[in-house]
């Protein structure tokens, strides 16, 4: 049955479309097109999130998906959910030879205590990250401001990921499976005065000038 492959549901005011993982992507596109034609009126002015499960999508695939919906009136795809990042943490260590292959999320604001961002690519933040805030990325994290919170780069296990900030004063840094934290004695801590970068070297997190 067609319904088994493509599932529509309402979740917190958004229309979530879940695509089966085990079906060929081309087939998914064809079925999705047919389905959207079928129930055109159902979609009027909806904000759509597409859940692709653990399927790996190329940028071209994503565009194809978005194209289907942008052809219909009043629709906007606001997010493509990929379950990869949550499920693969702590599982097998996956190698990413080059983080530039990942897509990048640009965030134009400060993250305050209690706020968090999690993204299946690189994250660039134009603002500060305050204590109590968390950034988790599959790739690199770059903060164009003061970083005072918790960062996890290479969240799927890649230890080639880096964390860089204009002023790096983190509560905790995680890269791949490595964890580093600020020393307990505040006295030894020199206030950073230039941009710094954290990376894994010889099995430990090292911070040096950018």
């Amino acid at each position, binding site marked *: 049955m067609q319904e088994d492959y493509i599932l529509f549901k309402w979740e917190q005011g958004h229309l979530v479309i879940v695509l089966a993982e085990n079906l060929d992507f081309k087939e998914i596109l064809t079925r999705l097109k047919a389905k959207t034609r079928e129930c055109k009126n159902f979609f009027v002015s909806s904000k759509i999130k597409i859940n692709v499960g653990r399927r790996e999508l190329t940028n071209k695939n994503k565009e194809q998906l978005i194209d289907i919906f942008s052809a219909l009136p009043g629709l906007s795809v606001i997010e493509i959910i990929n379950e990869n990042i949550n499920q693969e943490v702590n599982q097998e260590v996956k190698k990413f030879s080059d983080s530039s292959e990942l897509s990048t999320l640009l965030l134009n604001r*400060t*993250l*305050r*205590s*209690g*706020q968090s961002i999690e993204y299946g690519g690189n994250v660039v933040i134009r603002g*500060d990250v*305050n*204590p*109590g805030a968390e950034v988790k990325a599959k790739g690199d994290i770059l903060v164009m401001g*003061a970083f*005072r919170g918790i960062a996890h780069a290479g969240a799927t296990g890649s230890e080639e990921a880096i964390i860089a900030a204009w002023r790096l004063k983190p509560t905790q840094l995680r890269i791949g499976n490595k964890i580093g934290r600020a020393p307990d004695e505040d006295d030894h801590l020199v206030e950073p005065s230039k941009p710094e970068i954290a990376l894994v070297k010889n099995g430990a997190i090292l911070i040096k000038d950018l």
Partner: protein
Amino acid sequence: MDGKAIVITSGKGGVGKTTSTANIGTGLAQLGKEVVLIDADIGLRNLDVVMGLENRIVYDIVDVVEENCRLEQALIKDKRYSSLSLLPAAQTRDKTAVSKEQMVEVCKRLKAEADYVLIDCPAGIEQGFQNAIAGADEAIIITTPEVAAIRDADRVIGMLQAEGLGEPEVIINRIRMDMVNKGDMMDIEDMIEILAIKLLGVVPDDQEIVISTNKGEPIILDDSNSQSAQAFKNIVHRLEGEKIPLMSLEEGFMEKFKRILGLG
């Protein structure tokens, strides 16, 4: 009249929300403004005690939203200023007794009659907080020079921004310049750097506030030149749009700070 509603909030408890609400409200009334104070801390009401109006309460905010009385009946006139009144919280109920929509409605009706509606927010970020900010147009954050208070203030600022109260101002309460100068207390610059919002004022730690709070007489009524009373007066004038420089205790500190950095 079409006044504005300002919520006074902090996240952390015990930093001086209620004391600040009482003092700012009284100060605005001293300038001849029509002011209504709302105690949104249902179940733990305090503002009436700090204002010295506890024994005059007949109806409260829950009676108003449940239509046991008219809004005007629940408003208690201040002993000292006729342009100041208080809408007390209920003591025997809890935060679920009022909904966001009801709060918005109450604020709207009060704003039609007053220049300022000051909402004393409960500690925390749960329903009581959500209710208190629902009807507000602006927000004032109270914090103390403690890491935990700053952390909570930062969290609250983030939540206010999500609710469209994007530009709150902060009052740093209970600062002790002697400790700051010795490096034992966070300094103003550090706090403002993290919170990245406008500083509305700095209130020094003052035993007189404890005394005045217990007596039910806001310190701002005190005509002797207590520094905390002066700090609250400055805050009130800044709210009214005047440009009042920081007090000498703050200036002295700033100068010292600059000297340490080699700027002064």
